[in-house]
């Protein structure tokens, strides 16, 4: 008997190593996560922590050195070219830069119908109808069909990118810093839009952001990345109200809130600029007030602690609450 499908995508023990001039970079180091149907997983972490690499591996744009990736029950590395092409229909991406991800010479109609053309879907007329429909669903009008990206605002470009991602009616949408370049008021509109579309279409999101507030608003589940590793993972409540990894706590307390009365929680405690601590078992050790003084954080390899069904972390001496 087959068990019920509980994930639309699974990333298992994936590592990706880049060899650069300055040495080897573990962009992904034994990373595992899964995407549940109709839900949102947020990947958060500072720049260089491996978020985009995780997205690229999942999208089949980059091949990991080890580990496996399964999308809708099919294993990525084992697919023939045509199978991979068909699978690509099911997983689409929206990126950060509203302008550069759209071809500046193409009209909005051409941009959004691009994926339909690539898969030979419909004729010219039915494609136009579909594009108008998609435009409406992202809050744009028929009058935008003829415009080119430079005639649109950043928020409108991002809506066009979203419409294009929806054109093939995918199951999964990867949003890589998709609202990071937008102003506060426009960002709010686009976040509302993304939640509405998700609900209407039962979409699954991998939502990548460095902004914890946005992750909190959008995600059911959050994975915190630090230098290629997922250091904490859990439901919204687990990660925000019961953070166990010292890095998660440091991140949260560094976010300035627009409430002047909010007394700042203790910040990341090591105020001096730390050295990277390359050889430590825990890569966060040099920034961790607790880990700095502990031998095991330096030399004992870390194992994932599964604190509850939903909540796990990678730390020898997690933050205690109570």
């Amino acid at each position, binding site marked *: 008997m087959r068990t019920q499908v509980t994930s639309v995508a699974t990333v298992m023990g994936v590592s990706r190593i880049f060899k650069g001039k300055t040495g080897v970079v573990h962009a992904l180091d034994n990373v595992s996560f899964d995407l549940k149907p109709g839900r949102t997983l947020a990947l958060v972490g*500072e*720049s260089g922590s491996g978020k985009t690499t995780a997205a690229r591996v999942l999208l089949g744009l980059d091949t990991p050195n080890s580990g496996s990736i399964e999308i809708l029950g099919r294993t990525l590395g084992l697919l023939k070219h045509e199978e991979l092409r068909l699978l690509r229909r099911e997983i689409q991406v929206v990126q950060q830069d509203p302008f550069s991800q759209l071809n500046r010479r193409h009209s909005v109609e051409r941009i959004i119908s691009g994926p339909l053309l690539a898969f030979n879907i419909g004729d010219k007329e039915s494609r136009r109808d579909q594009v108008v429909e998609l435009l409406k669903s992202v809050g744009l009008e028929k009058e935008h069909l003829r415009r080119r990206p430079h005639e649109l*605002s950043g*928020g409108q470009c991002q809506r066009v990118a979203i419409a294009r991602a929806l054109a093939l009616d995918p199951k999964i949408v990867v949003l890589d810093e998709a609202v990071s370049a937008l*102003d*506060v*008021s*426009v*960002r*709010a*509109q686009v*976040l*509302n839009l993304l*939640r*509405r579309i998700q609900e209407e279409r039962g979409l699954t999101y991998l939502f990548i952001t*460095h*902004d*914890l*507030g*946005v992750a*909190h*608003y959008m995600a059911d589940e959050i994975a915190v990345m630090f230098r290629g590793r997922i250091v904490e993972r859990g439901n*919204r409540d687990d990660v*925000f109200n019961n953070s166990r990894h010292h890095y998660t706590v*440091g*991140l*949260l307390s*560094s*976010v*300035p*809130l*627009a*409430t*002047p*009365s*909010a007394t*700042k929680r203790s*910040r*990341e405690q090591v*105020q*001096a*600029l730390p050295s990277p601590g390359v050889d430590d078992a825990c890569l966060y050790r040099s920034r961790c007030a607790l880990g700095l003084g502990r031998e095991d954080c330096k030399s004992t390899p870390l194992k994932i602690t599964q604190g509850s069904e939903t909540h796990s972390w990678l730390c020898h001496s997690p933050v205690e609450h109570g």
Partner: protein
Amino acid sequence: MKNALVVNNLSLSVPSAKGRVTVVDDVSFDIPAGKKIGLVGESGSGKSLTAYSLMRLIKDPVQIDKGEIFLGEKEILGMSMKDFRHMRGNDISMIYQDPMSALNPIMRIGAQIIESIRLHSDLDHGQARRLAIEHLASVGIPEPDRRIDSYPFEMSGGMLQRVVIAIALSGEPKVLIADEATTALDVTTQDRVLTLIDKLAAERGLSVLLITHDLGVAAQFSDDIMVMYAGKLVEKGSVNQIFSHPVHPYTKALLDSRCDYTIDVTKPINSIAGQPPRLDNRPDGCVFSPRCEHVQPRCREGVPPLISVQDRLAACFRAEELFHVEMVK
């Protein structure tokens, strides 16, 4: 209290298909000595052009149409460029989003700080080098006597921004402008850099103009806040007044549309409908009127002046009324 900086009726324009259009519109404010003022607004609202005016960095095709800027006792817009150059760095300094815009990529950072120190003093090279090491230490660079010989590419963004702060403060200015200076940094690094600016400002009695689109940054690191929309200052008051009881509908809408981890996730965010006006299509009357949920016919006719309302300044015909409605709620 003495003002370190006074800006009177500053207006700037840029060319457009429809002729010259105003992008900074009759802006007046002052920064009392030792105070930190946050200037917030969405992109294109005119924050950077305001800042560049204070540094006299406005270049063609942007033009200053009117206004006065007093730095201490001296009006700087009418001054010869030669005279003003002595004030840049000595009286007022600015740091930018990209630290590399202020650094030479192929010159050791030490040489760059020393150059700046010697420009503002008559120390010899050895003395300047010792002072440079002190400056690096004061901005929290570890092992400053070794780091002074690093090249910019050997340092992280957070480190480079500290170096730029060290250079900006080397002439002991009284006013520091930070234009989105931590926007490109990770949140933990941003926190460290802003805390550093805070500390240095307190130690040296610096006046700071903190320009940011991030409401949280402004709230946590300023004494007073100015809100800018489409080239206009729409509200100005203490951090508490602005964030706890805003009266201008734009300020209120902007705060409502934020997405930090304290907001209610079960509801859509109260976003502002529409988008800021295109610069060649500024509305008549109040610049916010096309997007304002409290708009009345008079708002489309006359421009509301920035006047005192409930212990702060606001440019809205209905500010007083809306404040009371809000209090009743």
